């Protein structure tokens, strides 16, 4: 804390441009690490930097980016949402299931989003109104919603090869894949909320100092309710993307352990668990690091076991490099 304070203060005392630069660097976060990593893979495999592979990496990052956007909101309020993977599965199951019911084929998207919103609100009510600890609440939901997702399909894979909303994951606009576009849209929405709306500032305020926020007349519970509902909804979007990509959904296999990747993206992106510090663009970079790492390791043909080790080491190294590069940016 105090280190951070000092050096960022130095910049401030220096000149105003200094502050801006520091802020920009902080927002950029781990971008240099991402570039370094990409460069490494580029040297190791000539297929890494092809248009096709870049498009694939972006697609593979898309779902996690959407989940991590919602997660950013939650973590900014010093909370956590472990239930994103399960909600994703439940939303995917509902949406595919509805498209299989004659006469309701076109309600798939609505049903999936509604399901996820409801689960998000359940999280929100328990955290914001009943004031239960977010970790336990969302851990409980991780388990319970997983059960519900399996129940929806009676523990079977639901398949719809004629999925009406398949276009969600199977079209392209100006050469950009729809999954990527979708992720971009939700990133922009999240950014706009955090940056330009009153709600955005209140999210930061609640995370920075919840009791001060209450004294400042902010309805803390409403803000919390919103972030969990939003995270739920983003999981639902992720579920739809997944269902559209797979033309199917499976209550057991979808979204397992996705919460870890989403949280990792957020934290790699420089958002602090303490709350009140972080940005959506950092999260995007974090999600890209994870996707590049996974893709690059497969592409270069590293054996599975070593992939684990390398992935773990790179994740830790990434934050370490970030710390070296800019001791100011990290609010541990």
């Amino acid at each position: 804390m105090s280190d951070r304070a000092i050096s960022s203060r130095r910049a401030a005392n220096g000149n105003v441009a200094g502050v801006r630069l520091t802020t920009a660097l902080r927002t950029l976060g781990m971008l240099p690490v991402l570039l370094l990593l990409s460069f490494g893979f580029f040297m190791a495999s000539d297929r890494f930097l092809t248009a096709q592979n870049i498009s694939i990496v972006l697609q593979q990052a898309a779902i996690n980016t959407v989940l991590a956007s919602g997660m950013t909101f939650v973590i900014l309020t010093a909370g956590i949402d472990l239930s994103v993977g399960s909600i994703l599965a439940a939303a995917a199951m509902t949406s595919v299931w509805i498209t299989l019911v004659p006469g309701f084929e076109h309600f798939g998207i609505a049903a999936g989003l509604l399901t996820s919103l409801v689960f998000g609100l359940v999280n929100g009510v328990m955290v914001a109104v009943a004031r239960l600890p977010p970790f336990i609440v969302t851990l409980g939901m991780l388990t319970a919603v997983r059960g519900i997702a399996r129940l929806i399909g009676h523990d079977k894979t639901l398949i719809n090869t004629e999925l009406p909303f398949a276009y969600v994951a199977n079209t392209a606009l100006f050469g950009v894949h729809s999954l990527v576009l979708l992720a971009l849209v939700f990133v922009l929405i999240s950014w706009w909320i955090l940056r330009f709306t009153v709600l955005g500032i209140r999210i930061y305020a609640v995370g920075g100092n919840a009791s001060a926020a209450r004294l400042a007349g902010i309805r803390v519970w409403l803000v919390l309710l919103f972030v969990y509902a939003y995270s739920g909804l983003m999981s639902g979007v992720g579920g739809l993307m997944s269902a559209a990509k797979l033309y199917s959904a499976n209550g057991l296999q979808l979204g397992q352990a996705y919460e870890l990747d989403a949280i990792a993206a957020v934290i790699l992106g420089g958002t602090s668990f303490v709350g009140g510090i972080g940005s959506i663009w950092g999260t995007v970079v974090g999600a890209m690091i994870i996707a590049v790492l996974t893709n690059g390791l497969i592409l270069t043909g590293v054996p599975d076991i070593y992939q684990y080790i390398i992935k773990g080491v790179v994740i830790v190294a990434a934050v370490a490099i970030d710390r070296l590069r800019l001791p100011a940016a990290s609010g541990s």
Partner: protein
Amino acid sequence: RDLTSVGIISGPLGNSFYQSLAAGAEAGVKKINPAAKATVTSYEGDLNKEFNLIDSFIAAGVDMIVMVGADPNAVTPVIKKAQNNGIVVVGMDAAANAADANVITDNRQGGEIVCAHLAEKIGGKGNVIIINGPQVQGVIDRVTGCKAALAAKPGIKIVADKEGDSSRDSGFSIMQTLLTQQADIAGVFAISDPMAIGADLAARQLGRDGIHIVGFDGSPEIVDALKKPTSVEASASQNPYALGEKAVQVGFDILNGKPPMEKLVKAPTGLVSRDNVSSYQGWLTQ
């Protein structure tokens, strides 16, 4: 066409079955072309990850993908995509319906023979529990086969059917609890060998003799158990190494315009039991 690069998608690699499977596939590749590149990966029970892996293989420009399908039908779209990129896709161990061919173990038959053996061991009557696994097609088939065999003996009653995660640990704790729940158990069918061994350890720890346990896979550890004084009676033996090797061979033939007669190649399982374990050859990993 020659074989230069192959993507292999196996199951969870910590399980020696999938390792042997992958090793077989890798060996199959090397046999055809020692210079070819074979990348071994695992989909780790995640449908999305399987899609991503195949996407990455398409980008990496492989000639052929041999894969364990997460779901027989759900993987169809991405297989189509690979095929459109000129890649031959062969399913191994678990069928993928859209694949150019599938080389799988006959899980249903395996469940049948091993449970028939169990029925015989417990004398055609008594309570049996099933230690089930993750609900994928292969597991579902095994249990179906087993139930069919047990149904042939009206004296046998299935009193519990619990899901584990295929590890020794989960076999152990499920068995521990079920033994408390059920005063009288004659037999156990576990859908995989590690769980059968876990169940055996739990039974012995609680001092419950006279329980007969059968597993599925014919893994090295079950072989060991069969040679020792345990409650394990038998297992349905698969040959993962051969499955993998065969899958690559079939794929190579398709690549060169020689599709197999049947799109679905089913390898029957054998029964490895206390009686024949000494002559059982076991799995290869090299």
